[in-house]
Structure formats: structure tokens, C-alpha cells
């Protein structure tokens, strides 16, 4: 395959050990759901380097998860903010961030969740925000509770918020979970532990942030996210 000056700049391969393997035996649901044949490495084409664009006019923003149906959700109100950058530290502007989570008791507003904890009529657990031109985002919610799951005896998921990010192309899509500092369940959670590299794992834990904490109203947490960068570093393109 000969190169063509019009070829799109590919996204960079993932740094080894910073991403989970789908074959992770400690997480039972992976057993029958991970591919066993070698993946085919596909040099990126415009199918992988381009991707959808979302905006609030078609996909409306939901920035405050802490109130619904005219009432306040029960639980510890928090503000979560941070920046989304690429691997070279460049902001990812105007990108959609989807958010979903359990309520303060550890129960999802989802028919499949059978955990014996109360639903909150004032909490749906769904959000959607956009980064600004500097890659900055912010939303308001309540701190989700831990909940039991069937993976192993006495298994509990640590407190976490689920996120979905798109970034600039099909190959920059990222689904992840944000955790809270000091949670004793992190050490025992096979989903958190699936990321081999310790530093990469710890970046999934948000940081308490007094600077965004609002007096008499809500605690603040910071969660910065990095999406894939392009194959050529700025140095190489010069």
C-alpha cells in the first residue's frame, strides 16, 4: 500500500497496559463475551479518523442531575468538572459528554436493577453536557451510592459515575467510569482493577476539589480525561 499525501493522520495506538483486555477472568461477564481470534489491525482510513458531531440543538444538554420533577434528589450534592484533552494536552472542544449513574442509595432508575434499595422520584441519573472551546465541562449531580453485584461473593461496585465520550473521530470513542478518592472498594473491584498500569488506573479516580466546592451548597470533584491523540506528534509534523 503506497502512501498518499491525502491519507488521514491516524490516531495513535494505545500506550501498553493503560487499557483493559477484554479477556479479564476476574470479571465473570467477560468469559463468553471476549473475542478469541486475533484482532485485525486496520490502518486508519477516514472511516476511523472522522466521526459524528453533536450539538445541543439536536441533542439537548442536561447539566443538573440533582433535581427532577420539580424536586431535589436525596443525597450529597456534588459538582463535577474537568477538562478533556488529547494525549498531547490539546483541548477537545465542543464534544458531547454523556453521563449516567445510580442514585444516592446505589439504585439505578432502570428496570434491570433489582437491588433492594429505594428509587428516588427526583433522580433519573442521566446527564449530557458539552465541553467549551477550552475542553472544559461541568455538571451538578448527587454522589452515587455503592451497590452489590453478582460477580463473586459479597461483590460491591465502588461509588462511580459512568461516562461516554466521542472526541474527534470514530476511533477516539471512549466509555469509562469515574471513581471517588479513598473508596475502600476500589481495591476489590475487578472492573477498576482491569487496567494493568497503576498510574493509568488511578487516573480514573476523581480528586476532591475545594476550588469548585460551593459554600453551603455542594462539594466539588475534578475529573480530567484524555482522549486519543494523532499518530504524528507536533514535533514530527514540523
Amino acid at each position, binding site marked *: 500500500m*503506497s502512501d498518499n499525501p491525502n491519507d488521514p493522520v491516524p490516531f495513535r495506538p494505545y500506550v501498553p497496559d493503560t487499557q483493559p483486555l477484554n479477556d479479564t477472568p476476574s470479571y465473570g461477564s467477560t468469559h*463468553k463475551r471476549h*473475542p*478469541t481470534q486475533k484482532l485485525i489491525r486496520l490502518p486508519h482510513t477516514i472511516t*476511523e479518523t472522522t466521526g*459524528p458531531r453533536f450539538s445541543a440543538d439536536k441533542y439537548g444538554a442536561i447539566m443538573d442531575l440533582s433535581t427532577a420533577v420539580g424536586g431535589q434528589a436525596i443525597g450529597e450534592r456534588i459538582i463535577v468538572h474537568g477538562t478533556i484533552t488529547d494525549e498531547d*494536552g490539546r483541548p477537545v472542544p465542543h464534544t458531547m459528554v454523556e453521563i*449516567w449513574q*445510580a442514585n444516592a442509595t446505589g439504585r439505578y432508575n432502570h428496570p434491570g436493577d433489582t437491588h433492594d434499595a429505594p428509587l428516588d422520584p427526583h433522580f433519573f441519573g442521566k446527564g449530557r453536557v458539552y465541553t467549551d472551546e477550552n475542553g472544559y465541562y461541568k455538571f451538578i449531580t448527587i454522589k452515587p451510592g455503592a451497590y452489590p453485584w453478582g460477580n463473586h461473593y459479597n461483590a460491591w461496585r465502588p461509588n462511580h459515575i459512568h461516562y461516554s465520550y466521542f472526541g474527534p473521530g470514530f476511533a477516539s470513542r471512549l466509555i469509562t467510569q469515574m471513581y471517588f478518592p479513598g473508596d475502600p472498594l476500589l481495591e476489590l473491584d475487578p472492573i477498576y482493577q482491569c487496567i494493568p498500569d497503576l498510574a*493509568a488506573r488511578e487516573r480514573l479516580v476523581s480528586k476532591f476539589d475545594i476550588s469548585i466546592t460551593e459554600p453551603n451548597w455542594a462539594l466539588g470533584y475534578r475529573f480530567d480525561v484524555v482522549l486519543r491523540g494523532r499518530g504524528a506528534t507536533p514535533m514530527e509534523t514540523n
Partner: protein
Amino acid sequence: MSATPTTGSQTIGPYWHLLEEPEWADLTRFGATGELITLTGTIRDGDGALVTDACVEIWQASPPASDVFQGWGRARTDTDGRFSFRTLKPGPVPGRGNALQAPHIAITILARGILIAIHTRAYFAGEKQNELDPLLTMIEEPARRSTLIAEPTTPGVWNLDIRLQGEGETVFLDI
């Protein structure tokens, strides 16, 4: 400039439906015109059991994204393990070098038990360009290649069944 690696991926889990907007499965809902098709299929696991809690997303670079056609959609697998999208039939798109890629739709599969997104593609049976497509020609075994090729069922409906693991395992891509 110091580089920070991409944030680690985590499973979408069993409760991602909180995000679901069923109309997002119809990519033509903003008034797109062209050759309307339905892309459907089932997802099965290593035991051949239907995967009924997956989030399936599609993206196509053709026809080019516009105000009325975003090129992207999301659908659940239902209680029959089936996903279904309404979209426009793509045309060929440029590949690397001077290659041309046969018409295709990129597919992302996310679910409980999947820690990092699984990627594949749907091509269309009977397309002449399939024989020259850079990805399809990379796969020597015809049986493996056929896991990427949607077959017509009724007029305008294309079916691609996906097997995550085991007998007839779909070809998945490292992108």
C-alpha cells in the same frame, strides 16, 4: 510537551439504557434522502446465547455527514438479541494510498462484560468493490470474510449476525 496516555476504558455495564434515545437508531430522522436501508442483526456470545443488553453504534463516512444526515446512530439489542438501524446505503469511500474501500458501515459493540469497545464492519453482499476492498482482501479464509458481509433478506433490509466468540466468531478490528 509531555504526553498523557488516553484514559482507561471501562465497561458500559448493564444500565447504559439510561442514555438510550430510541430514535437515535434512525439515522434518517432529520429528513435525509437517498437509498433507505435497514441494517439489522443479532449478537451472540461464546455459548451461542443471545446478547440482549448490548449497545450497538454505527458510523459511516458515506454519504458525507450533514445537517440532515449525521452518519451515526445507536441501538440496543432487544430481548431477541437483535439490533436494527434505519440509515442510507453508503457508497465507496477512499482508503489509504490510492485504494478505494467498498461501501461499509463501522460498528462499535459495547456491553456488560466488554471492557473496551469491540469494533467490526458491515459490508454489503454483491458489491463489486468487495473484491478489491483493502480490509476484505486481508482476510484469506472465505468463512471469516463472510462474517463482515451483510446479506439482503427482504428488499431494503440487510442482515449481519455477530458472534462475539467461538464458532463462526466475527472478524473484529484493532483500530
